[in-house]
Each structure stands twice: as structure tokens, then as C-alpha cells.
């Protein structure tokens, strides 16, 4: 009997842990389960199982086009954010530049501004400069949002870089550009890969900014949103499940890559 009370704190901790896990996974599991249901309505009980919904999704031109569009936007904004973010991080650690704290604060601002506010301000901004809504505007919005994450990741890695690696490269005959591309950039590599994958996920996931800045061509979240408004169906569950599996796989792979690089 004494044992039971002595173990109470541990037992309750364990219980909370499992409850949390359940809370986390149950909705996802339900969503996945429904995507295999052989009926038109998303509800229990699931009588028969089928892969038809997946077959349907894979043939859905709208869905495939939205996927492609999202990936394209993600790729473009990631490229831009990574370049910009790395450059800003280099500026922040560089010697002899004033106002590094201010640069850092400004670079990080978009990460803490609420998505809604940032979306509205971007919308106002592009209409002020007479930029049409659409692809370019979305890429711009996603880039601004992603830059802080690249800056922070690159900065962390840069700060752990032995100061004389670049000195050594310069000493052996590299000018500062060669030293950057042959020494600093490879050193930053793992952090940048991690940052880039994070940017991709942020962009694919983004709804608010895309909604405010987008034209008529829907990205993936916009398409799913439109479909949900037309009523739930297992087809949407199948779409969502596919997106979940792919993004989770990408995220895990990124984690694996950065971890492997970090052990070096």
C-alpha cells in the first residue's frame, strides 16, 4: 500500500504524458482513419474500408495543381529567405559594423508579428507600390516571414564557428569571397539545410498571408479550405493525410540530416 502512494507523483506524471499524447494523436488518427472509409460521410461507424478516396485525390487535377503551386512558392520563398537570412546573419557577426543589435531585432520582427497583422500590412504595402496580388506577392510575404528563422539558425551556427577558420583560409590564399564559399558556407551547411526545410514547411502551411496576397490560383491550404466549405468528405481527409505524411517525412529527414552533420 505504501508503495502506491510513494509512486503517486510518478504515476500521475506518466498518466499526464499519455493523456497528452492521446490528445495530440487522436484527432490526426481519426482524420486518417476516415480517409479510408468507404462511404460519403465523415462519421462513425466505419463500415467498409477503401483506398478509393486516395485514387480520387491522385487524379484530382485541381489538387495536383495546387500542390505544384504551393511547392513552387515554397521553393522560391525558401531560396530568397535563405540567401537574405544568411547575409543578415553574416552582417550581424561581422566586425566593425554598427547597430548589429538593431539589425538583429529588425530581422526577427516578422517572426513575432501576428500573421494577420503582417498579412494586412503586406497587402497595404503591395497596393501602395502598385504590385498586383498573386504569385510574386505571396513569395514576398512568405520570404519576409521565413527570414527570421534562417537568421537565428545561421547565427547560432556562426557563433559556434572557430574565429580563425576564415583567417586560416585567408592565410592560405583565399580572398574573402572564396573564403565564404569554401569555408563559411560549408560550415553553415547543416544549419542552412535545417532552416530551409523549416522555411518550406512554413510556406506550405501558410494560410493567412497567402489569403491576403493571393490571386485566383489556389495554394494547397486555400484549396482545402474551399473544399471544406463545400462540406466534409473523406476525400478531404485523404488529401490532408497525404500532406501530413509528406511534411512529416520531410521534417524527420531534415532532423536526421542536421543531427548527422552536427555530430561531425
Amino acid at each position, binding site marked *: 500500500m505504501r508503495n502506491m502512494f510513494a509512486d503517486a507523483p510518478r504515476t500521475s506524471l506518466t498518466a499526464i504524458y499519455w493523456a497528452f499524447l492521446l490528445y495530440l494523436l487522436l484527432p490526426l488518427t481519426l482524420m486518417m482513419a476516415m480517409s479510408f472509409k468507404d462511404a460519403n460521410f465523415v462519421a462513425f461507424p466505419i463500415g467498409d474500408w477503401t483506398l478509393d478516396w486516395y485514387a480520387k485525390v491522385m487524379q484530382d487535377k485541381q489538387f495536383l495543381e495546387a500542390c505544384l503551386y504551393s511547392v513552387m512558392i515554397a521553393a522560391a520563398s525558401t531560396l530568397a529567405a535563405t540567401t537574405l537570412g544568411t547575409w543578415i546573419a553574416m552582417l550581424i557577426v561581422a566586425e566593425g559594423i554598427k547597430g548589429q543589435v538593431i539589425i538583429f531585432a529588425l530581422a526577427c520582427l516578422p517572426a513575432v508579428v501576428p500573421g494577420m497583422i503582417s498579412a494586412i500590412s503586406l497587402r497595404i504595402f503591395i497596393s501602395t507600390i502598385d504590385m498586383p496580388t498573386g504569385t510574386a506577392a505571396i513569395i514576398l510575404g512568405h520570404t519576409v516571414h521565413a527570414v527570421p528563422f534562417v537568421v537565428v539558425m545561421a547565427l547560432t551556427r556562426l557563433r559556434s564557428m572557430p574565429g580563425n577558420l576564415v583567417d586560416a583560409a585567408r592565410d592560405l590564399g*583565399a580572398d574573402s569571397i572564396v573564403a565564404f564559399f569554401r569555408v563559411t558556407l560549408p560550415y553553415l551547411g547543416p544549419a542552412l539545410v535545417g532552416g530551409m526545410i523549416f522555411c518550406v514547411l512554413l510556406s506550405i502551411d501558410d494560410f493567412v498571408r497567402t489569403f491576403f496576397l493571393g490571386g485566383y490560383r489556389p495554394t494547397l491550404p486555400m484549396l482545402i479550405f474551399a473544399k471544406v466549405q463545400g462540406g466534409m468528405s473523406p476525400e478531404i481527409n485523404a488529401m490532408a493525410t497525404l500532406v501530413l505524411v509528406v511534411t512529416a517525412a520531410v521534417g524527420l529527414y531534415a532532423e536526421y540530416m542536421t543531427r548527422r552533420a552536427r555530430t561531425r
Partner: protein
Amino acid sequence: MQPVVQFDNVTKSYGKHVAVENLNLSIEAGKFVTLLGPSGCGKSTSLRMLGGFETPNSGRILLGGKDVTRVPPNKRNVNIVFQDYALFPHMSIAKNIAFGLELKGFDNQHIHRRVSELLELVQLQDYAKRLPSELSGGQRQRVALMRALAPDPEVLLLDEPLSALDAKLRQQMQIELKSIQEKTGKTFMFVTHDQEEALTMSDTIVVMNKGRIEQMGDPNTLYGRPGSVFVANFIGETNLLRSTVVGTEGDQAALNWNGVTIKAAQGGLTPKAGDHLYVVLRPEAIHCSAAEPESGNRIKGKIRQRVFKGNHTSLSVEVGDGTMLNALVHPADVSQLNGEEIWVGWKPETTTVIPDRHAHN
């Protein structure tokens, strides 16, 4: 012959703090030169100015007769071995060594040949494909050395490259470094605060103190004839006896130390009666005996401490007014020194004198 390196009145300060002051130094080709001095005396700053990483506030630095004071590091024909090696972590050993050669535009065949040649020199052929993180400290050290030697610099700069190694490995590397220097015939400019290291390897030692050169010379001279109290204390162990000149006899000076008359070689000085001098008495020059020695300098003393050091015993002997002299005694002689009271003796020619700069007489 023209010196490879010349510092011509070089001064470098950080804000108000003067790190290197009016440095004048010429280094001959093919020599192993060591900058020796306590922490913060400006050794690294001097080396970094030669490497191109710091610009002097005034003065000139010449490399092979050419003024390189304002030439960037990548355009100077010198290479540095950094204290923590600074090997590129994402490149294999071979790639690290090839780095400087690639930037000099050699063709692949030449690079390959040179890299294997250098790896062979330090017996690391089998490690060519490994990453730096997969090597031991000593091996990394060797790679860093070979990487810096690869582009065939006019001068190789080494900034305390051995300080991260343990004592045993450090001694081994000292010998290896010296032999590589001799094999390649390169000019080495080595920085250390370890006087033993400096004595072991150098052709010339430059003792620095507070941004200035205190004394420069070969190890024998610096040890045998230190020019200042600082150098005497910094290099090896020393007993300093502050004495007053009584007179001179040939090349020896007669001095009064606490009422005892001692003689010492003049060491190039021309002392006058009444001058104050320090007599530099190295521990190993002292001979301790139970009976009074018949000739040479001798002082009565009391043994205060015996420290057994394996191949010798270190004695602290109190003489005169409480001055402690440090003496090295051979194991065979220790057994004869049973009592507390002994005689400390030495030959006048084994000592030298240095002027007391602070004396006002």
C-alpha cells in the same frame, strides 16, 4: 645576406593600450626563431602583423625585402599554424592540405603529388581521407603544420602550436618540429611563453616584455649571459645576488655581498667600484659541501628544504640575512650533506653579472 623578415620600428596599439612598441627585428633565412615572453607581451600581435591580420599603427614590415605592411593575408607568402589548428572540419586531411595549393593554381597532378609527399613526411599517408575530427591532437597538429607548409611559404609562423598537447606529446612534437624545420630548410617563426620549449628548438630566441624586445640571442647566450633581471628570471631558474662592486681583477670583478667577498666574470660590463650589480648564479653551478671549499666563492648556509626530483635533489639553502639559494645536487652528493649547516660554493667563471637598472649611486 638579406634577412627574410624585417620589422622596422613597428608599433601597434589597441586604443590607448600599446601591444607592440617600436619593434625592430631582422630574421635570417632558414633559422628557427622564437618569440618568447609572458602572456600579453605582444607575441601574437607581432606574428599576426606579419601574417597580415593586423595593420601596424606605424613602422614597416618587410618580407624578402618587399614592403608588405598593408598587403592582405592572401597576398603574402607566409603561412600560419594556429594554436587550435583551425583545420577545416568539413574537408578531409588531404583536402585541407591541398587548399592552399589549389588557390595557388597548381594542376591536380602536382597537388596530389605534393600532398602525398607531405603526408609521408609526418607518416599520415593512411589518414588522407579522414576528417580532422577523426584524428588525435598530435595528428591534427601535424596536419596543420603540413597545410601551412604546402604552399611553400617564405616564412612559417607558429603561434603556440603545441600548447594544447600534453607534456609527453609536446616534447615529442618539439623534436619533430625541429627536424622538419631542418629537413625543409624553411624559416620558422615560433611563438611561445614556455622557456623550455624555446631553449629546445630555437636557433635564435627573442625575449619580449611589455611589447618590447628585452634581449635577443641564441639559447646558450640567453641562458649563460642574460642581459637583464627579467631575462635571467624568465629563462631557467636563477639565484640573483645583489652586490656592490669593490674592484676589478683582470676580467673578473670583486664584489661585496652582505659582507662576503665574491668574484664574478664581468660579462662584458665595465663595472666601477661602488656600482650595484646582480650576480646571476644558476642552481646547477652551485656545489654544496659539508666542509669549506678551498677555492672559489663560498658562503656558509643552512639547508631549509630538500626536494627529491629523481635525477637530482633540489635544495633550498638559507644564506646570510635570510636569502634563499636554490641549488641542484647530484644524488651521489646528497648523502654527504647530513647536517643542516653546509657550504655553498661556485666558480666565479660560471656566473655572470647584470647591471641593477634601478640603482642610483
